[in-house]
């Protein structure tokens, strides 16, 4: 989970490592994810969102498709991890 200056830099990074290009997320969307996940993390009743809640959060931020489905097995073990 990394920051990039531009889409071109993401593509370069993926190409150089043989990784697939995944959906790009804006800083605004990332703040939505960060605040949904962590805004209550220091509170007594905090808990991680479950799969159904995750799907709702992602959809609410415009992040859809199998990549964002926490219960999907369509990607199998293919994480693009080939650089050790």
């Amino acid at each position, binding site marked *: 989970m990394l*920051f990039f200056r531009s889409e071109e830099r993401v593509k370069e990074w993926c190409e150089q490592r043989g990784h697939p290009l995944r959906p790009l997320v804006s800083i605004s969307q990332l703040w939505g994810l*960060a605040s949904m996940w*962590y805004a209550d993390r220091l509170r007594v009743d905090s808990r991680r969102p479950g799969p159904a809640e995750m799907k709702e959060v992602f959809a609410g931020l415009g992040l859809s498709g199998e990549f964002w489905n926490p219960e999907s097995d369509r990607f199998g073990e293919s*994480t693009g991890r080939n650089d050790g």
Partner: protein
Amino acid sequence: MEFDRRVKLVVYGHFAATGGAPTAAVVSAEVGSSEAEVRSAYQRLSDQRVLVTAADGTSITMAPPFSGVPTPHVVISEGVRYFANCAWDALGIPAALGQPAAVHSECAQGGDQLVLEVAPEGPPPSDWLFHCLVPAAHWWDDIGFT
């Protein structure tokens, strides 16, 4: 309050106050139990994906969004320096603290420096991007890699 929740609160409170992970001795003193009981709680909290410990079962390497070890993602808030586990967690720390923070990181391709002044309401408009290689269903297969 149940024991594991007390341990979690002490761990997270320590990270928030100091920027670093507490030792098991500090946590055991805070919750009034043995270090062995604290280590057992760490294991259960790890199973719940609340903590990640090193192989010794005692050293906390992650209490998301906080990192117990140095990373390229640094967050500074009210004079305290924090390390985040990843780009997502770099914004997660200001969100968890609920106070202004400066996020310092870099472009993974080329090393351009990123500085985001994050208000409690969120960061300013930015054309930087976030990219995650691992699909959501596999994030915790190897959370260190993710």
